[in-house]
């Protein structure tokens, strides 16, 4: 096995990592290599260095240390019962690959995950060692994201936080029952506790120490998680409830939704179909409503019959159509909160409206010039010289706004 050339290992261990949705390299503390004379920088905003034909960005070298695994999670290609080809990188190989790729500007850094071999601590220990060597021996200041193994020891997690920009722990599935059924050896209780401990650690280290008044570095990019969508029967409302709980409880930076994708040699307990990509997209949109638009989780789907997001229209428009009593909103008078609820107005456009209207009253055309399209907007706003009249309450409004569009065809 160790005789495999690096290129073959890379093929196996990047293939094994492609089902993980997280990719961001943003939100960490700024750092560069000017003082160390080494290589690498993070400037707050992540950079996507390439895009795969699946539309997902390639920002990090996303690989597994090994795809051998003692767990048998039925949604996972690397589960112990799978007949997939196995490989294992040495620490050296991962460090060299990362540096070689980074120097050519292919990547922002490394996202290292791993199957669990022998014991959680042993695997976690090797991942931490990769990060340590990159930071201390290679003087690498790029982005490092480590996938923490929930069962590993507190000391290892603390070390991981010292070297990594971001740590993550996957909740795997939206409900504990789902985890128990599809990942029988994983314990939802342990996953929660690990997230709780990470939050505590991050808050503790964020306090300036008495002696130096300086903050210690501990995973400045925060923690994130991923859950698989569509492998069990949880509704969108249930999924968003779990996300809201995770954001509130563990201060996650991101919850990633990964549409369950068929995997080769898949377990017979799972649906074999194209991943529900549109559903995944709508979940991300709903997630934005919670994080940036002031929506509380229960109201996103309040009044919907099945607790599922509408696949044909975005969740904000769907909400507005269900809550027409709150419209039209006056562009020249409404507060920020009300403007953010208007379909078609994003946070940046709302900021521009608030700034512009301090100096002049805005007409529909003015709004049209600063946002992408007013087709969606018109029924929901009042502007100088524009009132939607009865349009807001018109029965066929939905049909007028929604371009006939289909969900991506199942083949």
């Amino acid at each position, binding site marked *: 096995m160790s005789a495999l050339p690096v290129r073959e290992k890379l093929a196996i261990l990047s293939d094994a990592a492609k089902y993980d949705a997280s990719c961001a390299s943003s939100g960490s503390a700024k750092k560069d290599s000017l003082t160390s004379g080494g290589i690498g920088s993070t400037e707050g905003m992540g*950079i996507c260095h390439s895009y795969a034909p699946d539309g997902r960005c390639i920002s990090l070298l996303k690989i597994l240390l090994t795809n051998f695994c003692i767990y048998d999670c039925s949604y996972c290609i690397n589960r112990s019962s799978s007949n997939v080809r196995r490989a294992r990188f040495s620490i050296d190989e991962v460090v060299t690959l990362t540096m070689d790729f980074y120097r050519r500007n*292919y990547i922002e850094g490394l996202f290292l995950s791993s199957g669990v071999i022998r014991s959680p601590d042993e695997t976690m220990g090797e991942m931490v060692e990769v990060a340590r060597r990159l930071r201390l021996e290679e003087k690498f200041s790029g982005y490092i994201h480590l996938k923490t193994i929930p069962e590993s020891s507190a000391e290892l997690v603390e070390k991981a936080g010292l070297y990594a920009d971001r740590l993550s722990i996957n909740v795997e599935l939206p409900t504990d029952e789902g985890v128990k059924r599809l990942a029988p050896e994983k314990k939802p209780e342990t996953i929660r506790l690990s997230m709780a401990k990470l939050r505590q650690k991050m808050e503790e280290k964020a306090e300036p120490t008495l002696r130096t008044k300086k903050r210690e570095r501990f995973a400045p990019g925060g923690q994130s998680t991923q859950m698989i969508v569509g492998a069990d029967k949880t509704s969108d409302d249930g999924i968003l409830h779990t996300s809201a709980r995770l954001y509130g409880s563990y201060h996650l930076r991101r919850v990633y939704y990964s549409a369950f994708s068929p995997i080769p040699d898949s377990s017979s307990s799972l649906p074999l179909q194209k991943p529900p990509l549109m559903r995944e997209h709508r979940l991300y949109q709903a997630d934005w409503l919670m994080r940036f638009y002031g929506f509380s989780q229960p109201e996103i789907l309040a009044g919907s019959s099945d607790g599922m997001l509408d696949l044909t229209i975005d969740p904000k428009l769907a909400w507005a159509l269900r809550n027409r009593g709150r419209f039209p909103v006056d562009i020249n008078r409404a507060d920020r909160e009300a403007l953010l609820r208007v379909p078609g107005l994003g946070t940046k456009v709302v900021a521009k409206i608030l700034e512009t209207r301090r100096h002049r009253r805005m007409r529909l055309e003015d709004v049209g010039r600063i946002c992408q399209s007013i087709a969606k907007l018109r029924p929901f706003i009042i502007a100088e010289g524009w009132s939607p009249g009865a349009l807001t309450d018109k029965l066929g409004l939905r049909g007028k706004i929604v371009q006939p569009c289909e969900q991506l065809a199942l083949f």
Partner: protein
Amino acid sequence: MRPAEFNLARYSVRLDSETDFAGWRDATRRLALNEVRPEDISWHVVSNSEQGQTDLPTVPAGTQLVVPRDFIARAETAFCHSDPGRFALLYRMLWRLRTEPKLLSIASDPDTRRLEAMEKAVRRDSHKMHAFVRFRKIGDGDEERYVAWFEPDHFIVERNADFFVRRFTGMRWTILTPHASADWDGKRLAIGPGAAKADAPPQDDTEALWRTYFENIFNPARLKVKAMQKEMPKKYWRNLPEASLIPDLIAGADKAAKEMIARMPTTPAPHHAKVQAKHWPKREPTQTPEDDDASSISGLREAAKGCRRCPLWRDATQTVFGEGPDKAKVIFVGEQPGDQEDLAGKPFVGPAGKVFDSILDDAGVDRQKVYVTNAVKHFKFEPRGKRRIHSKPNAGEVQACRWWIDREFALIKPELAVALGATAALSLLGKAIPVTKMRGQVIEREDGLRVFITIHPSFILRIHEPAEKEAERDRFLADMRQVKRLMAA
């Protein structure tokens, strides 16, 4: 007739290069202070050979051009745009700003919009440069250098060179573009003239590895070509080593995805049984705490970890069980764990717990000698963004959790219970009582347990007025002193 209508500008300004912002600034200062109207100026970029500035008016003595602070920074960005009309636009905006100082805040104004569009294009081009520059290594050891060929849409090399210095300080590199080049020798940055693609190395051995990665990280079941092209337009492809793989990956995606699905599940790998036997010798039986008749507090605590008696476990992190000596004379009962308690798994460690501790200390009650627990053992909350808003447990939840409270009392057999707040009183007495009215009283239960009634320490935290807060703290301290007397009695 006005000269502008014949396109006969009175002043012709010659800039040294496409990125000669200093030249534009100097000309602008001279022209604007001499009241030269925008339509009377034409702007040109000249090559070094034909250099020769048209006579521009001198700055009148004692005058100064006042410009909003952020205009210069924004103009500098837009200046890198490749649109030849940018020099005139920026002058016109500056001209207008003298009488319309809020111009930059009016997002719907055509000039402001055009400026914004230019800035955005330059920023996007810079971002794409940060992303899509691909270095190729030449030489080894001391001769090791990295060279890239890149074709930006705008004149952004000078603007972005520092980014690459910060990022690749410990490396010697050169970025070549048609307009300019940037070179870092490890110590100094040099901006030079443009180059040709042939000046850059044709390939690099690591590219094969990178292409392997690109091929394998792609999931054919998720083909989204439009999403890819939106962020990585085709114009960049010719200089990206991985891009030549894209057409074949797209063409083969459907087949690859179908194959993934069609491949029948196989029987588990041979090592699977061994792994299972070694690491998971016996699956833990599902916990049924009801059957677990623990005979000690630690056994009870263990059993409570899997409590599913009410739905609160679903959103909480963990069961927060009581803490203290199992022969304590007094048990303090609070309402429910809060945010911090939920994370730590211990009762009374958050802000209210700190208040509680300090008052117990003042009253001379040793927290190590008392048992502290909650009426409800899981945190009940509403998520609000990144915060959890405490939400009061209802009677059903209090009732469900009495199963644990009753067992705690049965094992510890305390002489006194202190009900901290209404929920605790409800739990201990089985009925709602007016806490503020009955505060300081001792109620004897049918089973003989004496229950002392007081408020929950979080009540003190919620008072903002300092004097009132202090008074409330004193009242609670008096209550705790009374508890101490009752303990001694």
